[in-house]
């Protein structure tokens, strides 16, 4: 982890962001989910290194984890917001950013007064992430002593969008997200494996009466980007000319360890303007 970039306080909007001693990867054991939708949970076994506020945890020995997919490019501005889920609560913890290969490239501590949120422009945290499929992106893990949530506000020239934490999938919870197949739309699915074991996901496209399927391997800790337009390009070409088709991408796994997914939709208008969309 020698390459870990320790964020200095002046890099962040919020003055309490400060350098942090490098840590290992996730490795925490989930205790209970705190969201019915997202990859957010109480965990035991992580957050006990160098976290001065452990004694103040709401639950003894537990830390709250939220996993997000963060993007710096091609969007013009990306701000990560962390907020307490309970009225008047404070925030104390840290954020780690992992490049697509699962290497921690930067991290910082965060803290806030009761009732306040933390805002961090993330571009500088992703400096050491390579561009992948036109995106400079990272998997972010937020670890706090109290239950928090987070979202990423991403702004293009046209408008902003708000991306919540990763949606959770495991062997009991497959996901299917709607996509619009069209020449003006492009989709990227980020699949994050925050675990120390390799997992596989099954991606099935539902378009008309066709249901082509591909299996993708997810090495430990890695983030994989999938584009249904590329993954199922052969099938889509067989469909011939079409203006716009509604389809679904179903993603499932046999892994009992939870994975995270999120979709980024890029729509290009005639004038070259781009608008992005996610699923909240």
């Amino acid at each position: 982890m020698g390459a870990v970039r320790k964020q200095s306080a002046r890099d962040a909007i919020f003055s309490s962001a400060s350098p942090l001693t490098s840590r290992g990867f996730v490795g925490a054991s989930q205790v209970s989910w705190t969201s019915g939708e997202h990859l957010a949970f109480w965990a035991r076994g992580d957050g006990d290194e160098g976290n001065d506020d452990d004694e103040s945890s709401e639950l003894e020995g537990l830390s709250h984890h939220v996993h997000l997919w963060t993007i710096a490019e091609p969007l013009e501005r990306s701000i990560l917001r962390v907020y307490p889920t309970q009225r008047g609560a404070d925030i104390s913890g840290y954020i780690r950013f992992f490049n697509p290969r699962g290497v921690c490239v930067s991290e910082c501590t965060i803290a806030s007064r009761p009732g306040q949120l933390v805002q961090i422009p993330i571009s500088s945290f992703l400096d050491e992430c390579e561009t992948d499929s036109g995106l400079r992106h990272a998997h972010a893990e937020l670890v706090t002593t109290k239950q928090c949530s987070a979202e990423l506000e991403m702004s293009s020239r046209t408008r902003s969008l708000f991306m919540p934490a990763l949606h959770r999938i495991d062997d009991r919870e497959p996901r299917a997200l709607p996509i619009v197949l069209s020449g003006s739309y492009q989709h990227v699915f980020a699949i994050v494996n925050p675990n120390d074991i390799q997992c596989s996901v099954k991606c099935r496209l539902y378009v008309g009466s066709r249901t082509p399927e591909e299996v993708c391997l997810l090495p430990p800790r890695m983030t994989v980007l999938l584009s249904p337009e590329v993954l199922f390009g052969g099938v889509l070409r067989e469909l011939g000319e079409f203006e716009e088709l509604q389809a679904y991408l179903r993603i499932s796994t046999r892994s009992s360890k939870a994975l995270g997914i999120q979709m980024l939709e890029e729509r290009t208008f005639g004038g070259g303007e781009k608008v992005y969309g996610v699923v909240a």
Partner: protein
Amino acid sequence: MNKWSWTAFFMRGVGGSLGGQASGSQSPSSPNLGGVNFNGAKVYLHFFPVANGVSAPYPIHAFIEIFCRGQLLARQGFEGLRLNQPDGLDLADVFPDLFRNPTPSSIPASREAPTSVYGAGKPVTTTEEFSRYATGEQPSSSGQVAERKPFPRLLEKDEILRTERELGISIELATTQPRLDLSRSRVLVEVCYPSHRVRYHAARASEKSSSHEISLYRHDGYETRLVEVSPFCGEPQAEGASALSDVSRDVRGESGPSTSRQASRTLRSVSLEKRHGNLPSGAIRDGEFLSAGRLPKALPDDDGGAVGEGSAYQQEQVARFLVQYEATSSLPVSVRCL
């Protein structure tokens, strides 16, 4: 028939109950992305019924109710969904009268089969099935099904459709298979504007809110609204019915005795800017330091207190969403289930 419920809402376009600030035109700073009337927003519902450990494509039934101000505006039942297979529909095909300007000829609620579906499959309207389900009555020997509750008076429905921008949706997925657990199924709402799409997951009826809206509230150029949706609850509620009815009466602007039925099928949209005040960054109010950044601390509720902690409006049946509207276009850019 085992059933699981989800609650959501949708925005038919700009204008209406937002207070007249919105119009169909775009601001000069907003690019002309198609130059169309924003009131023509499309709303899609996407279903993904799943059951743990079951891979067979069992048939799934879906029932949709659209409501507002305690009134049922439309309802429809469908079959054709299959377990483990995503599918969806365009609400404008199912409820065309909700998506056009109300005229005398369009006011009667549609009880006909939808003209088309949106998605991979083709759900089939089963009005009779839905009616039996909704009423809990068995069909008579002649096959006729009694209507439990008529649609609202035409004038009232016209008024709702003319003034209300946001309408509540109650979605139920049901199966005749006794061992299927559909609780992990997903229902996704997609509001499609010519300029962008907003997608969010509907709230499971039994899930409690995990976040307080004040935690997310900030002054950032968006109009932030808290939308609380109380779907049809069925039987009179044992607890909280009175308070809920009071809220419902507030929304309706009515007085007089209320019933538990009034408490259901309501949608309340509150501007957090009005609720918590339009304070500048770092402002101080009532002796409290509000924020070094942009987030003010919660202030005492000043418009009925329906959303405050301990309020009956935070009962399990109420789904709460935080919506951020773009100031320039008055269009929503984000919906978050709290």
